[in-house]
């Protein structure tokens, strides 16, 4: 090899460049990707909240169940939950250094996001498919 590589790394490893977690810049990239997609989706969500403020049970159910609302709401969930899972993981990794507590919290972080996603998606789909 022409280049000087002081690390004990094969050229194949180097060119793949995925690091010890084998995901390369994936975390960074998905954080940015969802940051961008969050902007229109969160604005949609805020608009929906303004429109639904003060509406009764039946009206609210009808609005959420409408495909024009249900679909962007599901997309917003996917984008926001992915984004916040990555964000909380960084916070945990920055402040928690215990060999036991850190992986436990990183796992709980994923469980929390999956449960919030499942509950919310179930609710939206239930209303979209007819209450």
């Amino acid at each position: 090899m022409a280049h000087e590589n002081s690390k004990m790394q094969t050229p194949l490893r180097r060119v793949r460049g995925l690091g010890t977690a084998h995901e390369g810049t994936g975390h960074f990239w998905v954080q940015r990707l969802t940051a961008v997609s969050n902007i229109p989706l969160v604005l949609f969500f805020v608009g929906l909240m303004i429109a639904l403020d003060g509406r009764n049970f039946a009206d609210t159910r009808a609005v959420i169940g409408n495909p024009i609302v249900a679909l962007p709401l599901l997309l917003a969930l996917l984008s926001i939950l992915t984004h916040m899972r990555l964000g909380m993981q960084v916070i945990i990794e920055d402040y928690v250094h215990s060999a036991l507590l850190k992986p436990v919290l990183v796992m709980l972080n994923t469980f929390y996001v999956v449960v919030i996603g499942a509950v919310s998606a179930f609710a939206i789909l239930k209303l979209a498919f007819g209450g």
Partner: protein
Amino acid sequence: MSQQAASRPRPLSPHLTIYKPPITMAMSIIHRITGGALYFGTLLVAWWLLAAATSQSQFVFLSEWSETIIGRLILVLYTWTLMHHMMGGIRHLVWDTVHGLEKNNSRKIAWATLVVSITLTALIWATVIWTKG
């Protein structure tokens, strides 16, 4: 000679009690705090969605709670938290393009995130009051 230097009162680096946090530092910390708060705020959204889908009594409970002064305060704070994290996020996206990192610009942009987030929060709640009122 070295004895003298060691016994002389040493100059202290800016002490925490008299240290004025730069706006960029404050906005950096607030970005993380608002992100953490929004993380737990999604519990409220999931609760509300589940209530709308499955339980009228839960839905009415949340609706009535949201109309109380404390409920409104929490929702206004939630709105600002969301808007501020969004503005901070846009600032990060600008930084990713290697713009706005110069000292004076970064300070101006940091102040701008605060001003814009407060303005947007006011606009959102003005819209709520205007459409209902």
